[in-house]
């Protein structure tokens, strides 16, 4: 089976959901016209990233009673959509969230688990943490969604892999940092942060013999830049495509999902994985954690 995929690496208007929605609907239409089956958008694609006190004013409910989601759900009848937004739950907690929409329904919502609150990041101050991860079934097979810092922790992609994810959909609003030095042979044209994300995503694809695709914000918020560079890796860990750095783009690519069969026939890492052993050891480590120190 082939999956025609559109990776939207976009700029956003900070705190203006309706203007961002307009851009989403345009790109969804464009992707559909180009034959895409699925379009994915970056982290917080409907709101912008450094929201601070704007958080409560841009929060949405991912169902058809919400005027924004209503339009996205309608659009999802023709093409599957992954979109980034702020969710306010029934107890008025605010989450960084990604929703997967298909055929007019919300198939899954992921709440960002790891909220970076260090250095230039302050997410934990404004958002509630997600408390779980689940893979879910789509018409293209089982999918795992994560948001930015979530996949900087190896545990979450690993858990999703065990939960059956063969296709990882990663979304970021990653502020660019670390100008590469020219003297140490680093690949020119890519910030250290961009190189790091690409390297770990490639590693996940290879280690989990799965498809890993990632899209990321473009543009600026005050002095911060977002580097774009959407990417896809196949189950051999080979790069399939990479979008431009620091430019908006709708990156089109085709995933040959039969590659899962070929790679795993050659390399049965998933077959040989020992979740019971991991569980046993993590249980032991977790029990000893407080007594050891």
């Amino acid at each position, binding site marked *: 089976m082939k999956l025609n995929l559109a990776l939207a690496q976009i700029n956003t208007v900070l705190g203006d959901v309706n203007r961002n929605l307009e851009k989403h609907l345009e790109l969804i239409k464009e992707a559909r016209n180009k034959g895409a089956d699925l379009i994915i958008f970056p982290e917080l694609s409907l709101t912008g990233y450094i929201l601070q006190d704007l958080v409560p004013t841009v929060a949405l409910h991912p169902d058809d009673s919400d005027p924004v989601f209503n339009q996205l759900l309608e659009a999802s009848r023709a093409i599957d959509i992954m979109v980034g937004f702020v969710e306010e739950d029934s107890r008025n907690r605010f989450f960084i969230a990604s929703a997967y929409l298909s055929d007019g329904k919300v198939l899954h919502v992921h709440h960002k688990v790891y909220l970076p609150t260090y250095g230039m990041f302050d997410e934990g101050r404004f958002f509630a943490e997600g408390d779980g991860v689940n893979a879910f079934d789509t018409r293209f097979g089982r999918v795992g969604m994560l948001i930015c810092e979530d996949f900087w922790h190896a545990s979450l992609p690993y858990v999703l892999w065990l939960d059956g994810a063969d296709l990882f959909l990663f979304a970021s609003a990653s502020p*660019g940092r670390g100008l590469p030095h020219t003297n140490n042979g680093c690949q020119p*044209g890519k910030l250290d942060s961009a190189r790091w994300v690409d390297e770990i995503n490639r590693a996940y694809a290879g280690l989990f013999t799965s498809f890993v695709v990632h899209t990321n914000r473009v543009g600026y918020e*005050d*002095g911060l830049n977002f580097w774009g560079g959407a990417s896809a890796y196949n189950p051999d860990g080979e790069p399939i495509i990479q979008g431009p750095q620091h430019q908006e783009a709708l990156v089109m690519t085709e995933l040959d999902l039969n590659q899962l069969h070929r790679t795993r026939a050659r390399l049965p890492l998933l077959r040989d994985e020992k979740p019971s052993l991991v569980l046993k050891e993590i249980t032991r480590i977790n029990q000893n954690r407080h007594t050891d120190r």
Partner: protein
Amino acid sequence: MPDLSIDTELARTILTGFIKTEIGRSGFSRAVLGLSGGIDSALACYLAAEALGPENVLAIRMPYKTSSKDSLEHAQLIIDDLGVQSLTVPITDMVDPLIDRFADMENRRKGNIMARQRMIILFDQSEAFKGLVLGTGNKTEILLGYSTLYGDSACAINPIGDLYKTQVRELSKAIGVPQPLLDKAPSADLWIGQTDEQELGFTYEEADRLLYLLIDQRYKPEECIETGFAENFVKAVIQRVRKNQFKRVLPPIAKLSNRTMGYDFLYLRDWGT
């Protein structure tokens, strides 16, 4: 020794994008900047001309009677090379009445007055030209506090404030800043014969290598000393960085209410754009 070299092409892409985007989001399409004849403002001018088009950049020369002839000529080299709009507004007649009012005024006070007078001209031209004032302070001088508060540090946006002086040189060279500006000793040109390095007591190259370890790489002071920096130099630089923090933040507001600017009223400048 730490490696301060940078991917100049990538820096250029990010910084020109920053200038164009952030000026645009404020509702403008033009920029104003003071052109001193030195390398920092030269680099800012090249980046702005590339980002906005030279016709949308106003470069202003603001000499004082003791300013060196070289400064004016070097600024003119940039104006001619880029084809940016330009203006020359001498400040002598504006600042001398204030300076003459106090017979005992030392160089530092005079320098601050000149820097603040130039700020007034830039922000006035900002209104007249409908362009935002571009900052031209680099990371080294911002960290060391080697600037006049509300003077040369005043600006709407600063494209080069995260580049150390040596990195400013590297990017300036790559972007085509004329050779005489790359070659000469950095100077605030506040009095005849002044050079920054003489006044600071160390070279920018030394300071940059140390600051890069302390700030960017989070080295402890003792680790810097082990790397080969003199203890006194390390201490003096750390002291300078600490003492000048006030120049890098907005003035604190005394909190009384439940919601106060700077503490719990938090929005980016780009709010809604």
